[in-house]
């Protein structure tokens, strides 16, 4: 039995994120993830290398992409003997993948691996109309041509024009993610003003990070694009204020606070990180950016108990802090994924709420406030966009580089996911 080892983050790579149906509208998940992995291979000269494992996934996936990650590995210059597999935990996919690879390294099962994720809502799988699907299946089971034609004759033109599009919604509640976030904002009394201010900061921070060249060794251009195309470097608070509420019709008619400006857009993109044991990194002469030291997942009962759908990170973080023996204030950087500005603000408010912390989280007092000047200082999803499974890899690589630049310190990652889940982790240097 091996002892538990430290897990080093060597580096990361992502392609610029792009708003759905824009510059990557013809790119597949496969292509984007392959380009991303290849960039990581190129950056660290891993051509022909057999890695211990590559783990990743996509939330929106074609059935033909059942082996998405392995197929991508085979298209890179890594050794074809590198195993790989797909996972899916909604927006938590990328970080969960990093945790899986990290755990294998920590236990000595593997020496190095890559973790990541990819998503496209431009090249999303479209299901044929449900009636039409049944007819097609019936026809394919038919034993004679006559039977087959008989089945196919049941098709109606209307079936073609009403295909089943993938939805970014909760199957159990019928509400979209945005509607859930709007409900949370109402429950926690989060003002439109605060949401817009957070969105503005995200854009300005991301723009500054680009200007400083922060992403130079964290990204590779794709399809001629070198910057996240959702980024508005010249965004103003007036512009954000002018946007109309986007998710209020069903849940709070005419009282909505969530807009297209303070919510993430549908986005295409991919990201990956390289994790390894310290021994492997030393043998390859690769410097370590930071270490992945703790992780935790949590889920809330958003259906029967009507918990906020995106509140699970509020639960996951204190459980992880208890294991790490530190407080919420013991961090140099906070990377809280901005699915919606409201999600971030609700979580921060919940941690300061004595009653919530005691009754829901089972703590003896509130976790307290964080220093907001340490929050998402190089921008986050509101500016960069949010290709579901790719967000985790973006954040891990970004935070690891920030810790490396600082020389030492600790950073918190918090990501909410569909299904009422939360995936969180601590990076240290």
């Amino acid at each position: 039995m091996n002892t538990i080892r430290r897990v080093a983050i060597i580096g990361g790579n992502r392609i610029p994120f792009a708003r759905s149906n824009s510059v990557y509208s013809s790119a597949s998940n496969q292509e984007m993830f392959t380009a991303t992995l290849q960039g990581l291979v190129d950056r660290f000269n891993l051509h022909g290398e057999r890695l211990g494992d590559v783990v990743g996934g996509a939330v929106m996936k074609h059935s033909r992409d059942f082996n998405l990650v392995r197929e991508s590995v085979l298209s890179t210059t890594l050794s074809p003997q590198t195993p790989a597999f797909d996972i899916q935990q909604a927006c938590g996919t990328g970080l969960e993948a990093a945790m899986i690879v990290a755990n294998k390294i920590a236990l000595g099962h593997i020496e190095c691996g890559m973790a990541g994720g990819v998503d496209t809502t431009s090249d999303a799988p479209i299901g044929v109309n449900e009636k039409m699907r049944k007819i097609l299946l019936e026809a394919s089971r038919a034993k004679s041509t006559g039977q087959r034609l008989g089945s196919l004759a049941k098709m109606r033109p209307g079936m073609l024009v009403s295909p089943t599009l993938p939805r970014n919604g909760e199957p159990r509640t019928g509400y979209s993610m945005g509607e859930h976030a709007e409900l949370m904002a109402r429950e926690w009394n989060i003002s439109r003003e605060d949401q817009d201010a957070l969105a503005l900061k995200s854009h300005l921070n991301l723009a500054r990070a680009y200007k400083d060249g922060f992403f130079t060794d964290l990204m590779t251009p794709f399809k001629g694009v070198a910057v996240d195309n959702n980024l508005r470097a010249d965004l103003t608070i007036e512009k954000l204020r002018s946007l109309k509420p986007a998710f209020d019709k069903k849940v709070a008619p005419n009282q909505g606070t969530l807009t297209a400006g303070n919510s993430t857009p549908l986005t295409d993109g991919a990201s990956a990180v390289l994790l390894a044991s310290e021994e492997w990194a030393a043998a390859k002469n690769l410097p370590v950016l930071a270490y992945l030291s703790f992780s935790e997942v949590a889920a809330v009962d958003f259906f029967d108990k009507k918990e906020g759908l995106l509140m699970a990170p509020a639960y996951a973080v204190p459980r992880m802090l208890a294991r790490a023996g530190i407080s919420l204030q013991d961090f140099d950087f906070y990377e809280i994924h901005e699915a919606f500005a409201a999600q971030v603000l609700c979580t921060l408010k919940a941690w300061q709420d004595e009653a919530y912390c005691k009754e829901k989280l089972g703590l003896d007092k509130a976790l307290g406030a964080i220093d907001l000047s340490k929050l998402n200082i190089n921008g986050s999803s509101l500016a960069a966009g949010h290709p579901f499974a790719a967000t985790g890899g973006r954040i891990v690589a970004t935070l690891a580089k920030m810790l490396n630049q600082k020389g030492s310190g600790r950073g918190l990652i918090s990501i909410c996911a569909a299904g009422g889940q939360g995936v969180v982790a601590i990076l240290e240097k």
Partner: protein
Amino acid sequence: MNDGYLNFANSAVGAKLADALGLPKPIVLDRYKEGQPVIKGSVLVGGGDDAKLLPVLAKIFKSIGAQTVAHRQLPQWLPLANGAGLMSGRWGVDDQPGEKVKALVFDATGMTDSTQSDALYEFFHDAARSVLPCGRVIVFGRPPEQCANPRQATIQRALEGLTRSLAKELKRAIAVQLVYVAEGAEDQLESTVRFLLSPRSTYVSAQVIRVGTPVGAGGTPLNWDKSLAGKKVLVTGASRGIGASIAEIMVREGATVICLDVPQAQPGLNEIAAKLGATAIELDIGAADAPQKLVDAAKADGGWDVIVHNAGITRDKTIANMKPHFWQMVMNVNLSTQERINDALVESGALKSGARIVCVSSISGIAGNNGQTNYALSKAGVIGMVQSTAPVFAKHGVTINAVAPGFIETQMTAAIPFAMREAGRRMNSMSQGGLPVDVAEAIVWFANPASSGLTGNVVRVCGQSLIGA
């Protein structure tokens, strides 16, 4: 001076008609506009074994702000680019071509044997269809005459055949150049890469440029868009045509300009000088005392930094019909007087350290032309002067280079009879004439303080004219 056919072929009806009749379809060339980036679109980088310039190129691309991607033959590019603070990546996934690019750059400096040419095939085969209109191709090699052994010299010399053919083949106004970089001259490349990648070099194609170890006190401009800030520049024949454009572009680059022309050209000269805020000198450079007058003027002005010998004349006749004074005038104005002026300025110290002399030759001087024995003699002589005085002037820290314009839309060419004019216009890889500004941009590149590695070069501004190639 107005190319009506170019406009016609680019109109909706004209384009269809040109297609139907199989007529040439010139495209409107990209031209530099003040303040625009050096290059819009990605640069695809490739290279053979032991490509030596990659670190320098990464630094230059970073400085230019160019977005690069590398062909799979250069897996070492990304870490190197990242090391230079440049974001970069691989072109295409899974051996498929990537995005359309604005430029191809291939480093062939490491090639030492003709058996290594496959890397060239691989790169240009994969990328040929992916270059955008008005794109750029640069191949870097080592000067054959300085190679250590015959095999290396041979493959390096061979590159010329490739670039000249690519220039004809890629069409769509894509310009292709070969740049020979001497060992130790790697740091002299930036002004040349900037010029060749940018729309400033729009009418320059199929050229061979040699970059050597630096001559004199050069420097890097603080602002590349004002490359001649603080420099004093004399332009001869500046009252009209190409000379007026040179003066204008020099002023755009931040130079203080002295416009010179013959006394008969005074109205035009004064108009240009006033428009540009330049000083004017009325002088016949053919006169015996012209060299001394210019030395005095330069000294009184605190020394000059750049001399552009643009003034030139034609007196066309077949030699059997030519009167002796036609012969003598052309030789004197186009060549002899320039030799005297250069010698006087350099020897008297009227040129500042790091000074540049830029001459204007002509494609006639390279290819020869019916009725232009005198003119071609003088313009080929300009090439001889550039090549023979380069090593002499280098000792004084002065560079000397020439541009050789092809068909440029000016009053000189407007005077050519229609049929001949049309032929002159279309008989090049761009299917159109160049503009005076295209010549001026090339001259400004030679004049750049960062161009200390350029001397003895003759670069044609001819859209790869089919004659005299």
